[in-house]
Protein backbone atom coordinates (compact mmCIF):
# COMPACT_ATOMS: atom_id res chain seq x y z
CA UNK A 1 0.00 0.00 0.00
CA UNK A 2 2.71 2.46 0.90
CA UNK A 3 4.75 2.97 -2.16
CA UNK A 4 7.08 5.89 -2.58
CA UNK A 5 7.00 8.58 -5.22
CA UNK A 6 4.54 8.34 -8.01
CA UNK A 7 3.22 5.04 -6.81
CA UNK A 8 1.74 6.88 -3.89
CA UNK A 9 -0.05 9.21 -6.27
CA UNK A 10 -1.39 6.29 -8.25
CA UNK A 11 -2.52 4.52 -5.12
CA UNK A 12 -4.15 7.68 -3.84
CA UNK A 13 -5.98 8.21 -7.10
CA UNK A 14 -7.14 4.60 -7.14
CA UNK A 15 -8.36 4.70 -3.56
CA UNK A 16 -10.14 7.98 -4.04
CA UNK A 17 -12.02 6.70 -7.06
CA UNK A 18 -12.84 3.46 -5.27
CA UNK A 19 -14.17 5.28 -2.25
CA UNK A 20 -16.17 7.71 -4.36
CA UNK A 21 -17.60 4.93 -6.52
CA UNK A 22 -19.14 3.39 -3.44
CA UNK A 23 -21.17 6.54 -2.90
CA UNK A 24 -24.52 6.62 -4.63
CA UNK A 25 -26.68 9.70 -4.21
CA UNK A 26 -30.24 9.20 -3.19
CA UNK A 27 -32.75 9.71 -5.99
CA UNK A 28 -34.94 12.74 -6.08
CA UNK A 29 -32.18 15.28 -5.86
CA UNK A 30 -33.42 17.23 -8.83
CA UNK A 31 -36.88 17.54 -7.36
CA UNK A 32 -35.44 18.86 -4.15
CA UNK A 33 -33.33 21.37 -6.05
CA UNK A 34 -36.34 22.49 -8.07
CA UNK A 35 -38.39 22.88 -4.93
CA UNK A 36 -35.68 25.10 -3.52
CA UNK A 37 -35.31 27.17 -6.66
CA UNK A 38 -39.05 27.71 -6.84
CA UNK A 39 -38.92 29.23 -3.40
CA UNK A 40 -35.95 31.35 -4.32
CA UNK A 41 -36.08 32.47 -7.95
CA UNK A 42 -33.22 34.24 -9.66
CA UNK A 43 -32.48 37.70 -8.43
CA UNK A 44 -34.05 40.71 -10.12
CA UNK A 45 -31.77 42.20 -12.67
CA UNK A 46 -31.25 45.47 -10.81
CA UNK A 47 -30.27 43.67 -7.64
CA UNK A 48 -28.03 41.35 -9.58
CA UNK A 49 -26.33 44.31 -11.23
CA UNK A 50 -25.77 45.99 -7.89
CA UNK A 51 -24.50 42.83 -6.28
CA UNK A 52 -22.28 42.18 -9.26
CA UNK A 53 -20.75 45.62 -8.95
CA UNK A 54 -20.30 45.08 -5.24
CA UNK A 55 -18.63 41.74 -5.76
CA UNK A 56 -16.38 43.23 -8.40
CA UNK A 57 -15.33 45.97 -6.03
CA UNK A 58 -14.79 43.40 -3.33
CA UNK A 59 -12.63 41.29 -5.58
CA UNK A 60 -10.73 44.34 -6.67
CA UNK A 61 -10.01 45.21 -3.08
CA UNK A 62 -8.91 41.78 -2.00
CA UNK A 63 -7.79 40.02 -5.15
CA UNK A 64 -6.54 42.79 -7.37
CA UNK A 65 -8.79 42.38 -10.38
CA UNK A 66 -12.32 43.29 -11.23
CA UNK A 67 -13.78 40.16 -12.67
CA UNK A 68 -14.69 36.76 -11.43
CA UNK A 69 -11.55 34.95 -10.26
CA UNK A 70 -11.84 32.24 -12.85
CA UNK A 71 -12.13 34.63 -15.75
CA UNK A 72 -9.25 36.93 -15.07
CA UNK A 73 -5.62 36.35 -14.26
CA UNK A 74 -5.07 36.41 -10.57
CA UNK A 75 -1.98 37.38 -8.68
CA UNK A 76 -0.40 34.07 -9.54
CA UNK A 77 -0.23 35.12 -13.19
CA UNK A 78 2.44 37.64 -12.31
CA UNK A 79 4.38 35.39 -10.05
CA UNK A 80 7.01 34.65 -12.65
CA UNK A 81 8.14 38.24 -12.84
CA UNK A 82 9.54 38.80 -9.43
CA UNK A 83 9.95 42.56 -9.66
CA UNK A 84 6.45 43.17 -10.80
CA UNK A 85 5.12 40.81 -8.21
CA UNK A 86 7.03 42.58 -5.47
CA UNK A 87 5.82 45.96 -6.64
CA UNK A 88 2.32 44.60 -6.90
CA UNK A 89 2.57 43.23 -3.39
CA UNK A 90 2.99 46.72 -1.99
CA UNK A 91 0.05 47.94 -4.01
CA UNK A 92 -2.00 44.98 -2.82
CA UNK A 93 -1.37 45.95 0.75
CA UNK A 94 -2.41 49.53 0.08
CA UNK A 95 -5.55 48.69 -1.81
CA UNK A 96 -7.92 48.39 1.17
CA UNK A 97 -6.68 51.71 2.46
CA UNK A 98 -7.22 53.27 -0.94
CA UNK A 99 -10.72 51.90 -1.01
CA UNK A 100 -11.47 53.27 2.45
CA UNK A 101 -10.01 56.63 1.50
CA UNK A 102 -12.22 56.71 -1.56
CA UNK A 103 -15.30 55.96 0.48
CA UNK A 104 -14.36 58.66 2.98
CA UNK A 105 -13.77 61.15 0.18
CA UNK A 106 -17.12 60.47 -1.40
CA UNK A 107 -18.84 60.72 1.97
CA UNK A 108 -17.11 64.01 2.70
CA UNK A 109 -18.07 65.47 -0.64
CA UNK A 110 -21.61 64.30 -0.19
CA UNK A 111 -21.93 65.86 3.23
CA UNK A 112 -20.13 69.04 2.21
CA UNK A 113 -22.64 69.93 -0.46
CA UNK A 114 -25.64 71.54 1.22
CA UNK A 115 -28.28 70.22 -1.19
CA UNK A 116 -27.03 66.69 -0.82
CA UNK A 117 -26.73 67.05 2.91
CA UNK A 118 -30.20 68.49 3.09
CA UNK A 119 -31.54 65.65 1.02
CA UNK A 120 -29.84 63.09 3.24
CA UNK A 121 -31.16 64.68 6.39
CA UNK A 122 -34.60 64.97 4.88
CA UNK A 123 -34.59 61.33 3.90
CA UNK A 124 -33.32 60.40 7.32
CA UNK A 125 -36.03 62.40 9.02
CA UNK A 126 -38.63 60.83 6.79
CA UNK A 127 -37.36 57.37 7.56
CA UNK A 128 -37.34 58.02 11.26
CA UNK A 129 -40.88 59.29 11.12
CA UNK A 130 -40.05 62.94 11.53
CA UNK A 131 -42.08 65.73 10.05
CA UNK A 132 -40.40 66.98 6.90
CA UNK A 133 -41.88 70.41 7.35
CA UNK A 134 -40.03 70.83 10.58
CA UNK A 135 -36.79 69.94 8.85
CA UNK A 136 -37.29 72.52 6.19
CA UNK A 137 -38.47 75.03 8.64
CA UNK A 138 -35.31 74.78 10.60
CA UNK A 139 -33.27 75.74 7.60
CA UNK A 140 -32.59 79.27 8.38
CA UNK A 141 -35.67 80.60 10.00
CA UNK A 142 -34.15 80.13 13.34
CA UNK A 143 -36.67 77.84 14.88
CA UNK A 144 -35.35 74.85 16.63
CA UNK A 145 -37.29 71.85 15.66
CA UNK A 146 -38.14 69.49 18.42
CA UNK A 147 -37.60 66.26 16.59
CA UNK A 148 -34.09 67.11 15.63
CA UNK A 149 -34.57 66.46 11.97
CA UNK A 150 -33.36 69.82 10.89
CA UNK A 151 -31.17 70.66 13.77
CA UNK A 152 -28.01 70.22 11.83
CA UNK A 153 -29.36 72.14 8.94
CA UNK A 154 -30.15 75.07 11.08
CA UNK A 155 -26.44 75.52 11.41
CA UNK A 156 -26.46 77.24 8.11
CA UNK A 157 -24.74 80.50 8.66
CA UNK A 158 -25.59 81.64 5.19
CA UNK A 159 -29.03 82.52 6.25
CA UNK A 160 -30.69 80.34 3.73
CA UNK A 161 -34.29 81.21 3.86
CA UNK A 162 -36.35 78.44 5.09
CA UNK A 163 -40.01 78.27 4.72
CA UNK A 164 -42.92 76.98 6.49
CA UNK A 165 -41.98 76.57 10.08
CA UNK A 166 -45.03 76.79 12.11
CA UNK A 167 -44.97 78.68 15.25
CA UNK A 168 -46.13 75.78 17.28
CA UNK A 169 -43.11 73.79 16.31
CA UNK A 170 -40.81 76.56 17.29
CA UNK A 171 -42.55 77.00 20.50
CA UNK A 172 -42.38 73.34 21.31
CA UNK A 173 -38.75 73.19 20.51
CA UNK A 174 -37.83 76.26 22.40
CA UNK A 175 -38.97 76.16 25.95
CA UNK A 176 -38.82 78.84 28.55
CA UNK A 177 -35.08 78.92 28.35
CA UNK A 178 -35.47 81.24 25.43
CA UNK A 179 -36.68 84.00 27.57
CA UNK A 180 -34.03 83.59 30.15
CA UNK A 181 -31.13 83.71 27.73
CA UNK A 182 -32.42 85.33 24.65
CA UNK A 183 -29.77 86.52 22.27
CA UNK A 184 -30.38 89.99 21.10
CA UNK A 185 -28.71 89.56 17.81
CA UNK A 186 -31.14 91.81 16.08
CA UNK A 187 -29.16 94.27 14.06
CA UNK A 188 -30.31 97.74 14.55
CA UNK A 189 -29.62 98.44 10.93
CA UNK A 190 -32.17 96.00 9.83
CA UNK A 191 -35.15 98.01 8.87
CA UNK A 192 -37.08 95.06 7.62
CA UNK A 193 -37.33 93.49 10.96
CA UNK A 194 -40.90 92.99 11.78
CA UNK A 195 -42.36 93.55 15.08
CA UNK A 196 -40.77 91.06 17.36
CA UNK A 197 -43.58 91.30 19.71
CA UNK A 198 -45.72 89.49 17.23
CA UNK A 199 -43.08 86.86 17.02
CA UNK A 200 -43.00 86.52 20.69
CA UNK A 201 -46.65 86.06 21.04
CA UNK A 202 -46.80 83.31 18.53
CA UNK A 203 -43.56 81.47 18.73
CA UNK A 204 -42.60 81.68 22.30
CA UNK A 205 -44.40 79.45 24.68
CA UNK A 206 -44.05 82.09 27.30
CA UNK A 207 -45.19 85.25 25.72
CA UNK A 208 -45.39 86.89 29.06
CA UNK A 209 -41.68 86.93 29.37
CA UNK A 210 -40.44 90.24 30.39
CA UNK A 211 -38.65 91.94 27.54
CA UNK A 212 -36.38 93.56 29.98
CA UNK A 213 -35.27 90.13 31.00
CA UNK A 214 -34.33 89.55 27.46
CA UNK A 215 -32.22 92.60 27.55
CA UNK A 216 -30.41 91.40 30.54
CA UNK A 217 -29.41 88.32 28.66
CA UNK A 218 -26.85 90.35 26.85
CA UNK A 219 -24.54 89.08 29.49
CA UNK A 220 -25.01 85.55 28.27
CA UNK A 221 -21.88 84.12 26.80
CA UNK A 222 -21.84 83.79 23.13
CA UNK A 223 -20.69 80.79 21.21
CA UNK A 224 -19.19 83.28 18.85
CA UNK A 225 -16.32 83.61 21.22
CA UNK A 226 -15.06 80.35 19.90
CA UNK A 227 -15.26 81.58 16.38
CA UNK A 228 -17.92 79.24 15.21
CA UNK A 229 -19.79 80.00 12.08
CA UNK A 230 -23.07 79.82 13.80
CA UNK A 231 -22.24 82.44 16.31
CA UNK A 232 -24.44 85.46 16.41
CA UNK A 233 -21.53 87.72 15.61
CA UNK A 234 -20.77 86.01 12.39
CA UNK A 235 -24.24 85.48 11.21
CA UNK A 236 -25.94 88.35 9.56
CA UNK A 237 -29.21 86.58 9.54
CA UNK A 238 -31.95 88.30 11.30
CA UNK A 239 -34.97 86.20 11.82
CA UNK A 240 -37.59 88.74 11.30
CA UNK A 241 -40.84 86.99 11.67
CA UNK A 242 -43.98 88.42 10.38
CA UNK A 243 -46.90 87.02 12.10
CA UNK A 244 -50.42 87.42 11.05
CA UNK A 245 -51.84 84.68 13.04
CA UNK A 246 -50.68 81.96 10.70
CA UNK A 247 -47.23 81.70 12.20
CA UNK A 248 -45.34 82.08 8.96
CA UNK A 249 -41.71 82.75 9.58
CA UNK A 250 -39.72 84.57 6.94
CA UNK A 251 -36.07 85.10 7.65
CA UNK A 252 -34.44 88.08 6.13
CA UNK A 253 -30.78 88.39 5.52
CA UNK A 254 -29.40 91.78 6.15
CA UNK A 255 -26.18 92.97 4.62
CA UNK A 256 -24.78 94.20 7.88
CA UNK A 257 -22.10 91.74 8.92
CA UNK A 258 -21.94 92.71 12.55
CA UNK A 259 -25.20 92.77 14.31
CA UNK A 260 -25.32 95.13 17.16
CA UNK A 261 -27.06 94.31 20.35
CA UNK A 262 -29.91 96.58 20.92
CA UNK A 263 -31.80 97.43 23.96
CA UNK A 264 -35.05 97.33 22.22
CA UNK A 265 -36.03 94.73 24.66
CA UNK A 266 -37.87 92.75 22.13
CA UNK A 267 -37.22 89.08 22.18
CA UNK A 268 -36.47 87.62 18.82
CA UNK A 269 -36.51 84.16 17.54
CA UNK A 270 -33.29 82.34 18.21
CA UNK A 271 -31.99 81.39 14.79
CA UNK A 272 -29.28 78.95 15.73
CA UNK A 273 -29.36 75.27 16.44
CA UNK A 274 -27.63 75.54 19.78
CA UNK A 275 -29.11 76.96 22.84
CA UNK A 276 -27.15 78.51 25.56
CA UNK A 277 -27.49 75.64 27.92
CA UNK A 278 -25.92 73.49 25.24
CA UNK A 279 -22.74 75.31 26.11
CA UNK A 280 -23.17 74.63 29.75
CA UNK A 281 -24.27 78.13 30.52
CA UNK A 282 -27.33 79.04 32.45
CA UNK A 283 -29.26 82.23 32.32
CA UNK A 284 -27.15 83.66 35.02
CA UNK A 285 -24.08 82.17 33.53
CA UNK A 286 -20.72 83.57 32.98
CA UNK A 287 -20.39 86.68 30.98
CA UNK A 288 -19.28 86.67 27.42
CA UNK A 289 -15.65 86.18 26.70
CA UNK A 290 -15.40 89.11 24.39
CA UNK A 291 -17.08 92.40 24.51
CA UNK A 292 -18.05 92.32 20.93
CA UNK A 293 -20.16 89.33 21.45
CA UNK A 294 -23.76 89.89 20.80
CA UNK A 295 -24.89 87.18 23.12
Amino acid at each position, binding site marked *: *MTTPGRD*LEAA*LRRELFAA*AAAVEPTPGG*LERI*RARTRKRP*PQPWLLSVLLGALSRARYWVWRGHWAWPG*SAPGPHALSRSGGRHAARGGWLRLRPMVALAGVAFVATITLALPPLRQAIVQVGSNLTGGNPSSGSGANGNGSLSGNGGGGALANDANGTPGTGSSGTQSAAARPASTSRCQPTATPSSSPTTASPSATETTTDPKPTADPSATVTTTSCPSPGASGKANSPTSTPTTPSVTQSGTATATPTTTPTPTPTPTDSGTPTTWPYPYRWHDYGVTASGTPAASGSSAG
Partner: protein
Amino acid sequence: MSVTETLAATALIPDARSPATAWDADRVVTEIYHGEYKSLVRLAVLLVHDVPTAEEVVQDAFEAMHHAWRRLREKEKALSYLRQAVVNRSRSVLRHRTVVDRNAPKPAPDEPSAEQGALALIERSAVIAALRTLPDRQREAVVLRYYADLSEADIAATMGISRGAVKSHTARAMASLKSILELESS
Protein backbone atom coordinates in the same frame (compact mmCIF):
# COMPACT_ATOMS: atom_id res chain seq x y z
CA MET B 1 -27.23 17.98 -26.19
CA SER B 2 -24.31 17.84 -23.83
CA VAL B 3 -23.83 20.05 -20.84
CA THR B 4 -21.11 22.02 -22.56
CA GLU B 5 -23.27 22.66 -25.61
CA THR B 6 -26.15 23.78 -23.46
CA LEU B 7 -23.96 26.15 -21.51
CA ALA B 8 -22.42 27.53 -24.68
CA ALA B 9 -25.87 28.07 -26.14
CA THR B 10 -27.11 29.91 -23.10
CA ALA B 11 -24.00 32.03 -23.05
CA LEU B 12 -25.00 33.41 -26.43
CA ILE B 13 -28.19 34.86 -25.08
CA PRO B 14 -27.68 38.59 -25.62
CA ASP B 15 -29.80 40.03 -22.86
CA ALA B 16 -29.63 38.50 -19.46
CA ARG B 17 -32.57 40.62 -18.34
CA SER B 18 -34.97 38.78 -20.56
CA PRO B 19 -37.87 37.04 -18.88
CA ALA B 20 -36.46 33.75 -20.08
CA THR B 21 -33.58 34.00 -17.66
CA ALA B 22 -35.30 31.91 -15.05
CA TRP B 23 -36.12 29.33 -17.65
CA ASP B 24 -32.49 29.30 -18.79
CA ALA B 25 -31.32 28.84 -15.25
CA ASP B 26 -33.74 25.96 -14.79
CA ARG B 27 -32.56 24.36 -17.98
CA VAL B 28 -28.89 24.68 -17.08
CA VAL B 29 -29.55 23.32 -13.60
CA THR B 30 -31.27 20.34 -15.12
CA GLU B 31 -28.49 19.70 -17.60
CA ILE B 32 -25.74 19.97 -15.06
CA TYR B 33 -27.66 17.83 -12.65
CA HIS B 34 -27.95 15.00 -15.11
CA GLY B 35 -24.30 15.26 -16.07
CA GLU B 36 -22.45 16.21 -12.97
CA TYR B 37 -24.57 15.76 -9.89
CA LYS B 38 -23.18 12.38 -8.98
CA SER B 39 -19.56 13.44 -9.37
CA LEU B 40 -20.19 16.59 -7.36
CA VAL B 41 -21.78 14.57 -4.57
CA ARG B 42 -18.83 12.22 -4.57
CA LEU B 43 -16.44 15.13 -4.47
CA ALA B 44 -18.32 16.54 -1.52
CA VAL B 45 -18.31 13.16 0.21
CA LEU B 46 -14.56 13.06 0.02
CA LEU B 47 -14.46 16.45 1.66
CA VAL B 48 -17.13 16.17 4.33
CA HIS B 49 -17.11 12.34 4.83
CA ASP B 50 -20.87 12.21 4.99
CA VAL B 51 -23.27 11.34 2.18
CA PRO B 52 -26.40 13.21 3.37
CA THR B 53 -24.36 16.27 4.17
CA ALA B 54 -22.63 16.03 0.81
CA GLU B 55 -25.97 15.92 -0.98
CA GLU B 56 -27.14 18.90 1.02
CA VAL B 57 -24.01 20.79 0.11
CA VAL B 58 -24.39 20.07 -3.59
CA GLN B 59 -28.06 21.01 -3.60
CA ASP B 60 -27.21 24.24 -1.84
CA ALA B 61 -24.65 24.94 -4.53
CA PHE B 62 -27.19 24.31 -7.28
CA GLU B 63 -29.65 26.62 -5.61
CA ALA B 64 -27.01 29.32 -5.22
CA MET B 65 -26.07 29.05 -8.88
CA HIS B 66 -29.70 29.27 -9.91
CA HIS B 67 -30.25 32.29 -7.69
CA ALA B 68 -27.17 34.08 -8.96
CA TRP B 69 -27.67 33.12 -12.57
CA ARG B 70 -27.82 36.71 -13.81
CA ARG B 71 -24.56 37.49 -12.11
CA LEU B 72 -22.66 34.77 -13.87
CA ARG B 73 -20.67 36.62 -16.46
CA GLU B 74 -19.47 33.52 -18.25
CA LYS B 75 -22.25 31.04 -18.36
CA GLU B 76 -20.01 28.30 -19.62
CA LYS B 77 -18.21 28.42 -16.30
CA ALA B 78 -21.28 27.40 -14.38
CA LEU B 79 -19.70 24.08 -13.60
CA SER B 80 -16.64 25.82 -12.20
CA TYR B 81 -18.94 28.00 -10.15
CA LEU B 82 -20.70 24.94 -8.84
CA ARG B 83 -17.47 23.18 -7.98
CA GLN B 84 -16.18 26.22 -6.14
CA ALA B 85 -19.46 26.53 -4.28
CA VAL B 86 -19.25 22.90 -3.27
CA VAL B 87 -15.73 23.33 -1.94
CA ASN B 88 -16.61 26.49 -0.05
CA ARG B 89 -19.73 25.01 1.49
CA SER B 90 -17.90 21.85 2.42
CA ARG B 91 -15.38 24.00 4.18
CA SER B 92 -18.16 25.76 6.02
CA VAL B 93 -19.68 22.43 7.03
CA LEU B 94 -16.38 21.21 8.40
CA ARG B 95 -15.87 24.43 10.28
CA HIS B 96 -19.34 24.18 11.77
CA ARG B 97 -18.81 20.55 12.61
CA THR B 98 -15.59 21.38 14.41
CA VAL B 99 -17.40 23.86 16.61
CA VAL B 100 -20.24 21.43 17.27
CA ASP B 101 -17.88 18.59 18.12
CA ARG B 102 -15.97 20.83 20.45
CA ASN B 103 -19.08 21.62 22.45
CA ALA B 104 -20.93 18.34 22.17
CA PRO B 105 -20.85 15.82 24.99
CA LYS B 106 -18.53 12.94 24.30
CA PRO B 107 -20.25 9.57 23.69
CA ALA B 108 -19.51 6.48 25.68
CA PRO B 109 -16.44 4.55 24.53
CA ASP B 110 -18.41 1.58 23.24
CA GLU B 111 -21.09 3.68 21.59
CA PRO B 112 -20.46 4.44 17.91
CA SER B 113 -21.38 7.95 16.94
CA ALA B 114 -23.60 8.73 14.00
CA GLU B 115 -20.72 10.24 12.14
CA GLN B 116 -18.71 7.08 12.50
CA GLY B 117 -21.55 5.12 11.00
CA ALA B 118 -21.66 7.40 7.99
CA LEU B 119 -17.92 7.26 7.60
CA ALA B 120 -17.79 3.50 7.56
CA LEU B 121 -18.87 3.55 3.96
CA ILE B 122 -15.89 5.39 2.61
CA GLU B 123 -13.21 4.67 5.17
CA ARG B 124 -12.36 1.20 4.08
CA SER B 125 -8.81 1.89 3.14
CA ALA B 126 -5.88 3.21 5.03
CA VAL B 127 -5.32 5.85 2.40
CA ILE B 128 -8.76 7.36 2.90
CA ALA B 129 -8.34 7.19 6.65
CA ALA B 130 -5.01 8.96 6.37
CA LEU B 131 -6.54 11.50 4.05
CA ARG B 132 -9.04 12.37 6.71
CA THR B 133 -6.30 13.34 9.11
CA LEU B 134 -5.01 16.05 6.81
CA PRO B 135 -5.85 19.71 7.27
CA ASP B 136 -8.80 20.93 5.25
CA ARG B 137 -6.85 22.86 2.65
CA GLN B 138 -4.45 20.01 2.02
CA ARG B 139 -7.29 17.54 1.72
CA GLU B 140 -9.12 19.83 -0.71
CA ALA B 141 -6.02 20.19 -2.85
CA VAL B 142 -5.44 16.44 -2.93
CA VAL B 143 -9.04 15.57 -3.73
CA LEU B 144 -9.29 18.18 -6.47
CA ARG B 145 -6.00 17.06 -7.92
CA TYR B 146 -6.31 13.29 -7.79
CA TYR B 147 -10.05 12.77 -7.87
CA ALA B 148 -11.40 15.71 -9.87
CA ASP B 149 -8.31 15.73 -12.09
CA LEU B 150 -8.15 19.49 -12.12
CA SER B 151 -5.11 21.44 -13.18
CA GLU B 152 -3.23 23.62 -10.75
CA ALA B 153 -4.84 26.73 -12.18
CA ASP B 154 -8.31 25.27 -11.82
CA ILE B 155 -7.58 24.13 -8.30
CA ALA B 156 -6.32 27.59 -7.47
CA ALA B 157 -9.47 29.17 -8.87
CA THR B 158 -11.68 26.68 -7.09
CA MET B 159 -10.01 27.05 -3.75
CA GLY B 160 -9.48 30.78 -4.12
CA ILE B 161 -5.75 30.60 -3.56
CA SER B 162 -2.68 31.06 -5.70
CA ARG B 163 -1.08 28.40 -7.79
CA GLY B 164 1.97 28.36 -5.55
CA ALA B 165 -0.23 27.72 -2.56
CA VAL B 166 -1.79 24.80 -4.40
CA LYS B 167 1.65 23.32 -4.99
CA SER B 168 2.57 23.84 -1.37
CA HIS B 169 -0.61 22.27 -0.04
CA THR B 170 -0.32 19.30 -2.36
CA ALA B 171 3.32 18.66 -1.53
CA ARG B 172 2.72 18.86 2.19
CA ALA B 173 -0.29 16.60 1.93
CA MET B 174 1.63 13.98 0.01
CA ALA B 175 4.47 14.11 2.52
CA SER B 176 2.06 13.69 5.38
CA LEU B 177 0.25 10.82 3.69
CA LYS B 178 3.52 9.10 2.96
CA SER B 179 4.71 9.35 6.53
CA ILE B 180 1.38 8.18 7.91
CA LEU B 181 1.18 5.20 5.62
CA GLU B 182 4.79 4.23 6.26
CA LEU B 183 4.17 4.43 9.95
CA GLU B 184 1.15 2.20 9.65
CA SER B 185 2.90 -0.36 7.49
CA SER B 186 5.82 -0.57 9.85
